[in-house]
């Protein structure tokens, strides 16, 4: 028989899972760059909370460390780096013309969430662990929705945030199914992610300076010299 404390922690973990999925949907609905970044921070917080809860439940120090790495990288460092690198007006910008409008995007996100449930269904049935039941499908859904926003968004920063959301989803599923993953691997991933952000951030900054836009669709033709030379 499972103790009441374990049950409560599993319940809270399930709550974190629900909110992670909700944050993924919220990122799809938000137009403003700043809003998307804010929902990413919220999602990362819930992912970290889930790592702490599972770590407490299984008595694993590694998962606590992973949660701390998560908070240090996604909640503190990445927003700070992006804010330092990019001009402020980029954050107030809204993506008015999206490739696919928001209700359709939401429906696609829903289909991805359903697909995720189907994909991991056999695994979840085999695992019989409430933590896996909560984390695996929703982590998978977060991954797919992140990949979708990477494809459908036009601005550079929301695309970058799509990558980070994918990483969040993978992390969220990973802490449930592979709690004994070596810490060094996770650390490498976290540093990798920060590096990606710095590289994309610097690139975006230079593109904004020379071309004046960060819309990926507006950069379809190759230019040898900056516009100011003409």
């Amino acid at each position, binding site marked *: 028989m499972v103790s009441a404390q374990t049950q409560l922690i*599993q319940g809270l973990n399930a709550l974190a899972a629900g909110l992670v999925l*909700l944050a993924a949907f919220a990122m799809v609905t938000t137009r403003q760059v700043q809003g998307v970044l804010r929902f990413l921070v919220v999602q990362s917080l819930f992912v970290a909370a889930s790592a702490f809860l599972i770590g407490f439940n299984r008595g694993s120090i590694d998962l606590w460390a992973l949660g701390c790495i998560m908070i240090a990288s996604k909640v503190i460092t990445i927003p700070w780096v992006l804010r330092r690198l990019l001009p402020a007006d980029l954050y107030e910008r809204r993506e008015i013309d999206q490739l696919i409008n*928001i209700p359709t995007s939401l429906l696609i996100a829903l289909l991805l969430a359903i697909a995720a449930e189907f994909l991991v*269904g056999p695994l*979840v049935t085999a695992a019989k662990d*409430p933590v896996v*039941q*909560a984390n695996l499908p929703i982590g998978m859904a977060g991954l797919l929705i992140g990949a979708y926003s990477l494809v459908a968004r036009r601005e550079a920063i929301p695309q970058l945030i799509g990558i980070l959301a994918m990483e969040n989803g993978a992390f969220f599923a990973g802490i449930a199914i592979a709690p004994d993953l070596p810490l060094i691997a996770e650390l490498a991933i976290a540093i990798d992610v920060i590096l990606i952000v710095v590289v994309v951030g610097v690139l975006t900054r230079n593109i904004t300076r020379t071309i004046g836009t960060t819309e990926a669709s507006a950069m379809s033709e190759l230019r040898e010299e900056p516009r100011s030379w003409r």
Partner: protein
Amino acid sequence: MTRTILYNLIQLLFVLGFAPLYSGVLSRFKEIVQSRRGPSIIQPYRDLWKLFHKDEVVSSETTWIFRVTPYLVFIVPLFVASLIPVLTDYPLAFAFMGDMLAGGFFLGLGGFFAALAAVDTGNPYGPMGASRTRMVGFLAEPVFMIVFFTVSFVAQSTIPYIVQQKWVASPAAFFSPAHILLLIAFLMLILAEGGKIPVDNPAGHFELAMIDESKGLEYSGRGAALMKWGGQMKFLVLTCIFLNVLLAPWGLAGDVQPGHVLLAVPLILLKILLFTIVLVIIETSLAKLRLFRISEFLGAAFIISVAAMIASIFSASAA
């Protein structure tokens, strides 16, 4: 048996009596948060009293629909109130008359006649508001259906009294993603159906921007009072469904002793008061959506409710 019928009547009186107070407290809180003084919390009662003592003017161009509608709008929430747990957590005499779907249909009937009456007058603002209300209504309908399907799938029943027991059975059930997503979808539904801020501005008196208010523009005297009271009761009933069936069925009377049933009255009022604070926070921190963004708001509610349904189906098949 006579006792449960009596309690059912007490439930109706509760809804009837406290609905104006609820709307009064809500608007007063909102005024306080916006650092204004605002009217007293019993102002809605005074408004109703005043309206009941005024003469009623009915246009000669209107048909019977216009005259019948206020009574329908007034009666319909009372029907629903007799089907849902307002004060007790065991089924009362009328509980098996209809399930949650019946409640939804009753509320839909009231809304349908209110829209018809608004068109009936020929006032240009009435049909405009009616068509907008219908737009919000048909976008809200699928959300209601999916929420209802999910709830009845999880509880294996469609009677609200039985549904409420399932969520609180264990913390795992209470915090399950399905339950949380369902709550958020239903909260968004309440905001849309009650004409609250992200969808509609209840304090606005500008005809071109009205959604919910414009249906009652042509009513005066007793008709206006009944429409107003009916709207307040509808919102209280929706709140009771949200709080007592979906969110937190605590504080309800557990046995048939009259003392316990009466003790449930202040407990439920306290719960509604806490919910009022949440509503005020939502209403003051959000801006009203533009009309064509409402479809995005309710679309999001629909997506969330379907996600809840999927999560509950898969977690049930895994367990």
